[in-house]
């Protein structure tokens, strides 16, 4: 209920002193209802240049075949699958925020779920394009689906993890899209009811005739809860199945039973880092500091620390098991990560993912925006190298030394990768231009209970435990959007 007031020791989720329902709408819709600023245009120009590079590089791949990549007989998967796993992993944070945190009633998700889910969708699009591209002949993608054909019918092999992956990724993408769009309907209706002319028509079509009546809201909440309930095991299953692409093989470095939890933790780790990279800039550029507060930033950093540490434990376990197994190929693969020709990739992987994230134990670092931003990028560099090490470094020296080889990316490999980042940012920038980047309805829901102004009123009312009030005031010091001097008199 809206009038429910929560404990004073909880940090505020909305800061600022004169926040009303109307102000939330105005603040969130400012970038949608006005022409974008210079920063947006610069970002969009650079990103769309990247997207053009992607179109060119992928077209080149389709025209000349995947021989234009640096693959060889020994290293048959390289930047393509590295990029695929990296993007799918990045996507996982959005579903974690929108589904798992909803089930756990974490209200701080309300102001970051929309953009994180959008990021999920764009990341999975990038991942899917890698899969189609690495087929070389993209029209053959049809044969990964169980549809009748002229060869018998020759069906897909449901025993294969690669087919499970087709099912997992396509289900994940479509369910995330449905979840995201259903959540967007009330906010699209808000834009519709404020707009005029052509814009009103467009948003009218997009909002499906949403009215906000009692029954609609009641059904909407049921739908969101059930979607969250089914998306939670879904998101865990997706990266589990991605890890099985490797874990069910006999390749040393790949056939590891800890891969599923290790990959899922890694996915959430890199996904939150990407959310952090995007939101730290977005909140500043769009002026959303009151809604995406220091509490959100610190909470995400704590999740990065937790999942990064889980990944660290998984790394140690892998090394121990390689040693303990007594299998010489297994042992060699893990030693080769440090003493082989790709030692620098191994160092990037372990250094960025384990050593750098341990800095998050310090509150000064967790609540420092520039450092958090740099660390979030470091994490994603590290996670890209993790997949590179697992895929290329394991493959390049297999059982027979005569077939050992090196992998060198060509300009096409590089362009597809850089291009896919451009594609991702193009889609994200278009998103913040035409759709509300914060779920307005959900933020309005917590205004009366969890905002700074509501809590301040509670303090002014008196009869609260003095110790708790002091604790609360101390927790406000780290916020960059709170005027601490306001609290001297109250």
């Amino acid at each position, binding site marked *: 209920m809206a009038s429910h007031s929560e404990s004073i020791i909880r940090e505020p989720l909305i800061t600022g002193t004169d926040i009303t329902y109307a102000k939330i709408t105005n603040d969130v819709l400012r970038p949608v209802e006005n022409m974008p600023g210079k920063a947006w245009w610069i970002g969009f120009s650079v990103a769309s240049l990247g997207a053009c590079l992607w179109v060119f590089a992928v077209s080149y791949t389709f025209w000349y075949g995947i021989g234009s990549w640096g693959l060889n007989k020994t290293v048959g998967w390289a930047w393509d699958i590295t990029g695929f796993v990296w993007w799918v992993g990045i996507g996982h944070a959005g579903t974690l925020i929108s589904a798992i945190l909803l089930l756990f009633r974490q209200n701080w998700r309300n102001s970051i779920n929309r953009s994180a889910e959008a990021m999920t969708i764009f990341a999975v699009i990038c991942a899917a394009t890698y899969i189609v591209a690495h087929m070389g002949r993209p029209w053959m993608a049809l044969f990964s689906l169980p549809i009748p054909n002229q060869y018998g019918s020759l069906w897909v092999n449901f025993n294969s993890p690669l087919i499970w992956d087709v099912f997992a990724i396509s*289900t994940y993408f479509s369910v995330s899209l449905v*979840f995201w769009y259903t959540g967007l309907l009330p906010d699209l209706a808000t834009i519709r009811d404020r707009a005029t002319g052509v814009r009103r028509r467009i948003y009218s079509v997009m909002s499906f*005739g949403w009215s906000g009546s009692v029954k609609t809201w009641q059904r909407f909440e049921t739908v969101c809860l*059930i979607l969250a309930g089914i998306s939670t095991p879904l998101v865990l299953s997706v990266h589990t199945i991605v890890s099985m692409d490797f874990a069910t093989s006999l390749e040393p470095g790949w056939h590891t039973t800890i891969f599923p939890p290790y990959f899922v933790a890694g996915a959430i780790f890199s996904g939150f880092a990407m959310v952090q990279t995007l939101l730290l800039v977005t909140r500043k550029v769009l002026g959303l500091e009151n809604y995406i507060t220091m509490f959100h930033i610190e909470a995400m950093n704590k999740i990065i620390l937790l999942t990064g540490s889980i990944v660290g434990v998984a790394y140690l376990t892998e090394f121990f098991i390689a040693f303990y197994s007594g299998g010489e190929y297994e042992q060699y693969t893990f030693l080769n990560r440090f003493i082989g020709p790709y030692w620098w990739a191994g160092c990037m992987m372990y250094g960025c993912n384990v050593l750098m994230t341990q800095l998050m134990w310090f509150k000064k670092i967790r609540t420092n925006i520039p450092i958090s931003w740099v660390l979030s990028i470091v994490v994603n560099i590290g996670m890209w190298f993790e997949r590179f090490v697992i895929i290329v470094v394991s493959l390049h020296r297999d059982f027979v030394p005569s077939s050992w080889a090196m992998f060198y990316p060509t300009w096409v490999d590089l362009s597809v990768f850089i291009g896919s980042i451009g594609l991702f940012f193009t889609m994200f920038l278009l998103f913040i231009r035409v759709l509300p980047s914060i779920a307005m309805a959900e933020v309005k829901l917590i205004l009366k209970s969890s905002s700074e102004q509501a809590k301040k009123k509670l303090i002014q009312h008196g009869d609260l435990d003095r110790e708790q009030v002091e604790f609360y005031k101390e927790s406000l010091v780290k916020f960059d959007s709170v005027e601490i001097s306001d609290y001297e008199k109250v």
Partner: protein
Amino acid sequence: MSSTKYILGLFDDPDDMMHGIDTLQKNSVPIYDVYTPMPIHGIERKLGLKDSRLGYAAFMFGCLGGTTIFSMAYFMLVHDWPMNIGGKPAFAIPDLVPITFEWTVLFTAFGMVTTFFYATHLFPGRAPRVMDFRATDDRFVIAIDAKGSIPHEDITNLLKQAGAVEVKHNDRKYVSYE
């Protein structure tokens, strides 16, 4: 005879609006519907709405999805084209768990959301039926059908008493139509 079709009480606070619903109900004024910019828990109980049955629909669609893919896989791998993979049985049930799970989720999501859209009459391009444009922004709107026998001034006064910031007497049901 006045031309008013609907009386709208606009509140700027959800708690005032809840109070408004109570006041109206105490005075036996029937409420047509309530429009809010965000879900307000407790209204549905006050207005006597039944629980949503979408959960049952979701469950049925889930069962349908799981059964569909499991039967498809059985037909393809066991009946139509069994493969001899090292002499292992063609009907390898554990291998079918991932795809069965995925389609259970897929059918649940799409089936439930389609049912939601169908039941609530939501589809792309549907003309929005809006009684007040600010009901999706910052106003909590109680709509009362003006056909009843209760004098309009009484309803207006009740709404004002309960804390409505504005009371509208609308000649048209929906303001969103041309």
